[in-house]
């Protein structure tokens, strides 16, 4: 068996399976037990061969550790009562190895318990990454560009909620799960975009989050309730984005402008998969934001070149998107597409018609697009001022260099970089 991701993948499965057995209120004891089992695995597997069934091995060690933790904290009796098993019950000491399907079912259930609207969405996100995807608080902070303290706060908030209102994972019915499906979609979409859009220099780190999101969406798709048009559209979108991820950097790791990307670097297999899910998503009368975003991504993937992109279709899609999921960012993207379709003046007009929220007004995205359009419309002085603002608000050196590439024509003073 390939061990590459055994630790991370088994972590979420084990935490969910054991939490299902002993109750969500014990989730931190469960996490400690699973962590302990993995440390043991690290030690034994390095020395001897990997057991034939690593998953069963980990489950058994984690389960024993969990029992002994309960003994130590003298909560075992309470636990035994909860689980209606007696001390002399052998099967409790020697648990049957759960079937793989049973474990992924537990993982899904836990994901659906986490994603409920009484927990702030950013806490749902951190809890999912920590407890189900196996990232540490430090790694999450690194990946989400937040402080460790903040990441921990968000995590504790979700955990506290789950402990205070313990839901037995088995009580969630298929219709409960269906009702929460859109919230789970949103969190997994966030996991993906945190990886995809983040300006983190290390592609491998960003790729991790994207692949995790795809794995979990795939799991939902395979469940009894998850094969909906939205789930298919979301998966299509993720694959169509992932397909182009590697082409965003040149061989030296430098970020590339979209129009400079080498389209032969795009991953055809991912595109193929994405288009397949997009086709499957076109059932029923539902058009979700994922449908629209996936169709925009598909337009880019299918266009033979930047120039030959069907910008008119993209502009219309962004209009629909602004309607379904209002965000000034969609407007900004529409302005960019409009400039390609009907010229920079039309793009600038779209930009100036938008209502800009403060967070976007302070971001380099906004300034960069604005500077580019002003320059192309001929106002070089104004373009230069705005470009300098864009570079000043860029979060990383990589992005600063990218902006230089794009906006250097505006005649920037060299000291800005």
């Amino acid at each position, binding site marked *: 068996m390939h061990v590459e991701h055994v*630790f991370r993948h088994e*972590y979420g499965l084990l935490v969910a399976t054991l939490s299902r057995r002993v109750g969500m209120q014990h989730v931190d004891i469960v996490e400690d037990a699973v962590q302990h089992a993995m*440390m043991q695995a690290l030690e034994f597997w*390095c020395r001897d061969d990997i057991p034939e069934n690593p998953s069963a091995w980990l489950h058994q060690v984690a389960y024993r550790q969990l029992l002994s933790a309960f003994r130590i904290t003298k909560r075992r009796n309470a636990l035994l009562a909860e689980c209606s098993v007696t001390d002399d019950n052998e099967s409790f000491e020697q648990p049957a190895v759960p079937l793989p399907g049973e474990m992924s079912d537990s993982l899904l259930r836990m994901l659906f318990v986490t994603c409920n609207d009484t927990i702030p969405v950013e806490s749902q996100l951190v809890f999912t990454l920590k407890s189900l995807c*196996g*990232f*540490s608080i430090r790694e999450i902070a690194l990946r989400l560009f937040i402080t460790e303290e903040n990441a921990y706060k968000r995590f504790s908030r979700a955990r506290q909620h789950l402990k205070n209102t313990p839901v037995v994972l088995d009580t969630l019915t298929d219709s409960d799960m269906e009702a929460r499906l859109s919230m789970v979609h949103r969190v997994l979409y966030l996991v993906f975009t945190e990886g995809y859009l983040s300006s983190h220099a290390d592609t491998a780190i960003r790729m991790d989050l994207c692949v995790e999101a795809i794995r979990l969406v795939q799991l939902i798709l395979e469940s009894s309730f998850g094969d909906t048009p939205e789930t298919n559209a979301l998966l299509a979108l993720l694959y169509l984005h992932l397909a182009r991820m590697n082409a965003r950097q040149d061989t030296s790791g430098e970020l590339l402008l979209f129009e400079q990307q080498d389209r032969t670097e795009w991953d055809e297999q991912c595109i193929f998969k994405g288009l397949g899910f997009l086709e499957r998503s076109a059932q029923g009368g539902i058009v979700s934001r994922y449908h629209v975003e996936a169709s925009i991504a598909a337009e880019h993937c299918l266009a033979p070149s930047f120039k030959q992109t069907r910008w008119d279709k993209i502009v219309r899609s962004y209009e629909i998107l602004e309607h379904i999921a209002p965000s000034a960012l969609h407007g900004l993207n529409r302005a960019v597409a409009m400039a390609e379709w009907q010229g920079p003046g039309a793009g600038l007009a779209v930009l100036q018609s938008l209502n800009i929220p403060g967070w976007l007004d302070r971001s380099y995205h906004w300034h960069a697009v604005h500077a580019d359009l002003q320059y192309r419309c001929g106002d070089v002085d104004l373009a230069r001022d705005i470009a300098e603002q864009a570079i000043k608000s860029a979060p990383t050196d990589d992005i600063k260099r990218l902006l230089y590439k794009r906006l250097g024509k505006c005649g920037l003073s060299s000291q800005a970089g």
Partner: protein
Amino acid sequence: MSNKTYMCILRSESGDCEKPSPSEMELMYAKYQKWQEEFSGNIVDIGNKLGGSGRVVRRDGVQDGPFIELKEIIGGYMTLSAATLDDATVVIQASPMIASPGVSVEIREICSH
């Protein structure tokens, strides 16, 4: 020239260090595998971890561990085969064990006739 055998004693500072996450463990595992493969000719016995409690026996009595007066606790051992102490040092320096903060490895030749 035949190789000498060295006992390597791993010490780590007591106290709770931050536990690695599964994704960090994945990385550690990969590093260990690579290291073991690279130096398979040198590793005689990959050794074992030592338990956290124990006992010190002296003429005038027996003292239970953990040995709290020591800042560093002996956590494990392994035996290496190498031509010289310098060669054994190279093997240990390349190992992922010493990557963790607070860990040191003492290398001593096992003297045999």
